[in-house]
């Protein structure tokens, strides 16, 4: 996996807290493009971004947040960790990235070489979550080592093609949480399992 701090440093600046900026399409898009550009340079890959798809993904994500936002403030931190998994679901289900060339520099057999678009979308979610977590809680995200295991990515890609919600579970695993695999994209279901 690429250094998360490098990806975080590549995110566009904002004079607002990131938890607010990321829910503004102009920042969300700029951040997504920055991640695609930086990952593309390292992978030797050129990507095209479908703006219309990205806007629809963003809108569905906002609605998913509204639908699942907990009323209990004590659940805020857990929801903070959960929310990026919802955007990853949307990104994987309606992939806004298209590989135009490459990947010429990605190590053969690596996750980036196996699935460049899925890899970039996941990196984007990790970077934004990592940056926002540092800002809000002064905590650095720990990413599970499965991120570098290409077999996890085989499973992720295959299962997400059958059920987009699988992406939410994969992301929670990356953050070290055990998802509810029956309903990985449901925050309340996840809470009940964890309790």
């Amino acid at each position: 996996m690429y250094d998360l701090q490098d990806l975080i440093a590549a995110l566009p600046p904002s004079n607002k807290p990131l938890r607010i900026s990321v829910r503004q399409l102009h920042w969300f898009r700029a951040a997504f493009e920055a991640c695609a550009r930086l990952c593309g340079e390292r992978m030797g890959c050129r990507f095209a971004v479908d703006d219309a798809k990205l806007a629809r993904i963003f809108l569905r994500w906002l609605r998913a947040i509204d639908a699942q936002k907990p009323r209990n403030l004590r659940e805020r931190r857990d929801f903070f960790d959960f929310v990026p998994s919802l955007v990853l679901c949307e990104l994987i289900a309606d992939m806004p990235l298209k590989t135009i060339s490459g990947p010429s520099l990605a190590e053969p057999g690596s996750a980036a070489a196996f699935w460049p678009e899925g890899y970039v979308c996941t990196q984007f979610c990790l970077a934004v979550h990592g940056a926002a977590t540092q800002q809000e809680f002064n905590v650095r995200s720990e990413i599970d080592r499965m991120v570098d295991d290409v077999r996890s990515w085989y499973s992720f890609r295959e299962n997400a093609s059958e059920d987009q919600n699988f992406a939410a579970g994969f992301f929670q695993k990356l953050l070290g949480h055990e998802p509810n695999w029956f309903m990985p994209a449901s925050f309340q279901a996840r809470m009940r399992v964890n309790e």
Partner: protein
Amino acid sequence: MDFKRPQTPDVEPVRHMLRGLRGVLKEGRDRFAREIPDRLPTPASVAARALLHGVDQMAHDIDRLAVNISHGLRSTSPTKDDAGRPRAHPLADAFMGALAAARRQRALPDAAMPDEAVVRTAFAVACGPDGPFEPDGAASLTLTLLAGGEGGDAADRGRAVVIFGAALSLLASCDGETSASILRSAVDLSAALSDDILGACKSDDGAALADLYRKYRAHV
């Protein structure tokens, strides 16, 4: 007899001061967030986070205050220009520019859009001659500009996306000046919302349209 036009107060220093105040708040907030909450025991840590939330809200309120002051001071300007003609709404030019750019972004022919004079009149009616541009006025403007359009559903959708996007970009920008990035995002968001926008327009539901503006102006 010479009529001396009253001096309009300069908005920029006030806004500059508010920006400075906001910057100081943000700096203190970030330092506090970095150094304090995690060192405190749980009850105090919760209180500290509530305080941080309050500071964020205050920063947001300062942003809104800057906009309101800007609009308020503009509204003290005379209602007629030097030649005695009714003065255009201060944001009408910005809206016309946003509308033209949004039309180009959606590759809509110029002929598909309402005439400039119609747009300017509708803008003045929707907002009052000098009133602030708010979601209710934006909804009224949208319904007026879409009324009487020709060309079927696809054309209606195209026009609705452009008009809603242009108005949304104006509502979203803090100081009434739309940057290219804000405009582009507003139009893309408008396209993603096109079913909701068309639904509200077809049922002539100004309240539903205003709710869309109110909700999504923060998400451009």
